[in-house]
C-alpha cells in the first residue's frame, strides 16, 4: 500500500513547528541549536518527499536535501564552537546570561 504524501507532510509540519517552538522557548543554547536542526530536517523531508511524488524521474530535491544536511553539519560545528567559547567566557550557556552586547 502506497503511503500518502499528506502523512509525510504532517510529520514534517509537526517537526518544523516543534523546531520553531523549541527555538523560541528553550533557555539553553544547545537546545536552541537542536531546535534549528529540527527545522532543517523538516525541510529536508519536504524536499525528498516532493521530489519522490511530483518528479520521480529527477533528483534535484534529493540533492537539495543532501546539500542542506552538509551545510547543517558545518553550521552545527560553528555553532558548537561558538557555544564552547561562550561557556569559557561566562561559564554558562543559558541565553539569559548572554547580555554583554545588549543595548
Amino acid at each position: 500500500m502506497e503511503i500518502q504524501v499528506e502523512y509525510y507532510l504532517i510529520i514534517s509540519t509537526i517537526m518544523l513547528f516543534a523546531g520553531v517552538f523549541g527555538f523560541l522557548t528553550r533557555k539553553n543554547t544547545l537546545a536552541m541549536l537542536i531546535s534549528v536542526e529540527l527545522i532543517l530536517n523538516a525541510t529536508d523531508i519536504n524536499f525528498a518527499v516532493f521530489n519522490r511524488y511530483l518528479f520521480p524521474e529527477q533528483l534535484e530535491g534529493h540533492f537539495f536535501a543532501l546539500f542542506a544536511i552538509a551545510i547543517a553539519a558545518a553550521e552545527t560545528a560553528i555553532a558548537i564552537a561558538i557555544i564552547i567559547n561562550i561557556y569559557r567566557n561566562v561559564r554558562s550557556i543559558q541565553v539569559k546570561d548572554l547580555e554583554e552586547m545588549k543595548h
Partner: protein
Amino acid sequence: MEFTIFILLLPVLMFLFLGLAGHKLKPSVAGLCGTISLGTVAVISYITAFQYFTAPRVNGVFETLVPLNMEWLRLTEHLHIDLGILLDPISVMMLVVVSTVSFMVHIYSMGYMKGEKGFQRYYAFLSLFTFSMMGLVLATNIFQMYIFWELVGVSSYLLIGFYFTKPSAVAASKKAFIVTRFADLGFLAGILVLSFFSNTFSFTELMNGSCTSVLQSAAGQTFLGGSVIAWGLGLMFMGGAGKSAMFPFHIWLPDAMEGPTPVSALIHAATMVVAGVYLVARMFPLFIDYAPDVLAGIAYIGAFTALFSAVIACVQTDIKRVLAFSTISQIGFMIVALGVCTGKDAHEGLGYMASMFHLFTHAMFKALLFLGAGSIIHAVHSNEMSDMGGLRKYMPITHITFLIACLAIAGIPPFSGFFSKDEILAAAFKYSSMIGWLMTFVAGLTAFYMFRLYYNIFWGKEHKHEHTPHESPLTMSFPLMFLAAVTVVAGFIPFGTLVSSNGEAYHIHLDIVVASISVCVAVISIIIATIFYRKEEQPIPDMLGKKFRSLHTAATHRFYIDEVWMFITHKIIFRCISTPIAWFDRHVVDGFMNFLAWSTQEASFSIRGFQSGRVQQYAYVFLIGALVIIIGLLLLFI
C-alpha cells in the same frame, strides 16, 4: 614691482615667528628681529616709492599698477573678492609714511619697553599691526580693505590692552574695539550697497569708469531722499569716521592712551586713525561724481570735530590726552580738506592734495610728539603735566625735537606743518569763507594748546622728582632726531607733483593772504600761550578757569559725550532692545531646541528595548510579523 609682496609677507611672518617662538628668545633678540624685519620693509617701501615716482607718466598721470592680484572668493560671475597689491600715488605715499613711522616706533620701543613683561608679545603685535595697516593701504578692492580694516581693529585692541592686568587698559581696549566695530557696521553695509549696484569690489574697476553706466542708473534710484550710491558712500564714511575718531565716534581715542606710549604714537600718527581719511581719499572719485552732498556733509563733520576736540585739548592735563585730542583735531583738518573739494580737476580738488600732504606731514610730527611725550614719561614716570615743568635743562634732545614738532603743528614756516595746513586753509577758503575762518580759528587753538603743553613741560615750575630726570638712551633719542629732521624738510617736498586729485602734476603755490593770516594767528596764539604759561605762577589761566567755570568743567569732561554714549548704550540699547531679544532667545529659541533634544532622547529611550540582543525575541517578533503578512495576503486574495 613684484617684490612689494614682501612688504606684506615680512611683518606677518615676523608676527607668526615672534608669536609662536618669541618666548624662547631673549627679549633683546626678539626686539632686534622685529626691528630688522621692519627696517627691511621700510627699505622695500622706499625702493617702491622711488621706482614708482620716477617711472614715466602716462598721459600726464602716474599709472595705477596692480603687481599682484589673486582671486580668492568668486561670488557670482562678475563679483569676486580678490587679494592683491595696488600701487597708485596715495598708496605709495602711505607705504612710505606707515613704514617710516612704524620703523621708528620699533627702534624706539627697544628702549622704551626695555624690561617690560611680554616684550616679545609686544613686538609680535607690532608686526601684526604693521601688516594689517600695509594690507589696508595696498588693498586692490573694498573687501580686502575691509578685511585688513578689521585686522587693524583687532591688533589695536591687542596693543591698547597690552597691560592686560590693568583694568583701565582692558576697558580702553574694549572701548576702542567696540566703538570702531560699531562704526564698521556702517562700512560693511556701505560696501554691500555699493557692490550690489556696481557689481564689483575692485577699486580699479570702480575708478576707471567700466561700471559708470551701472552706477549712473543706480544713482537715479533713491532711498529716503538720497540716491542709493550716496547712501552707500555715506555708510562707508561712517566706518571711516569710526576709525578716524570723528565726532561722535571720537570717544575711544583718548582712552586708547592707556596703551604703551609708542603704540599711541603708531596708532595716532600713521596708521589707524588715518585709515578713515585714506578711505575717503580712495573713494574720492565716486564721492565727487555721485555724492557731492555727502562730501559737503563730511566737510562739516570734519570742521566740527576739529573745533570741538581742539577746545577740549586746551584744558586737558594728561599730556597724552592733549596729544590725542590734537590728533582728532588734525584728522578733522584732513577730512575737511577732502570734503571741500568740488571737482576732480587739480584746482577744484586742491583739498585732496592738501589732505594727503597734511596726512604725510602730520604723521611725522605727531609721531615725534608722541615719542617725545614717551621720552618725558620715561623720565618722570607720570602722565600729568603738573608733575613736569622745567625739564628743558635735563632733556635737551627731547626738548629741541618737541619744540620743532610744536612749531610744525602750530603752522610756523618753514616747518612742514605750515605748508600742508596752509593748503588746507586755502582749499577751505575757496569753498566757503565760513569754514575757512573756522579752520583758521582752530589752527590758532592748535598753536595755543600745543604751546600750553610745551611750556608746562619744559618751562614753568620745577617739580620735585624721585630721581633727577635724564635724557633717554640712543634707541629712543635717535627716532626723535630722525623724525625731527623729516619734520623740518618735509614741507619742501613737491608734494603736488606726486599726489593730486586727478593725478596730474600740480605745482603748489602759496596763497600769500591765507598764509600770512594763518601765520599771524599762530604767532598771536603762541604769544598768548607764552604769556599764560611761561611763568612758574599762572594767574591768568586760573582766573579764566574760574570765570568760565561751567565751560571749563564741561570741556574737562569732554562735553559729556562719553556719558551720552553710556546713556544710549546702557539705558536705551541694552534695556529696551537687547533685554527683550535676550529673553526671546533664552526662552523661545532655546526652549524649542531643548524640546527637540528632549523629545528625541525620550523617543530613543522608549524604543531601545527593541534592540535587546535576545535572538529568541527577534525570532518571535519575526514569526508574528510573518504570520500577520501571510494572513493579510490570504484575506486580500481569497
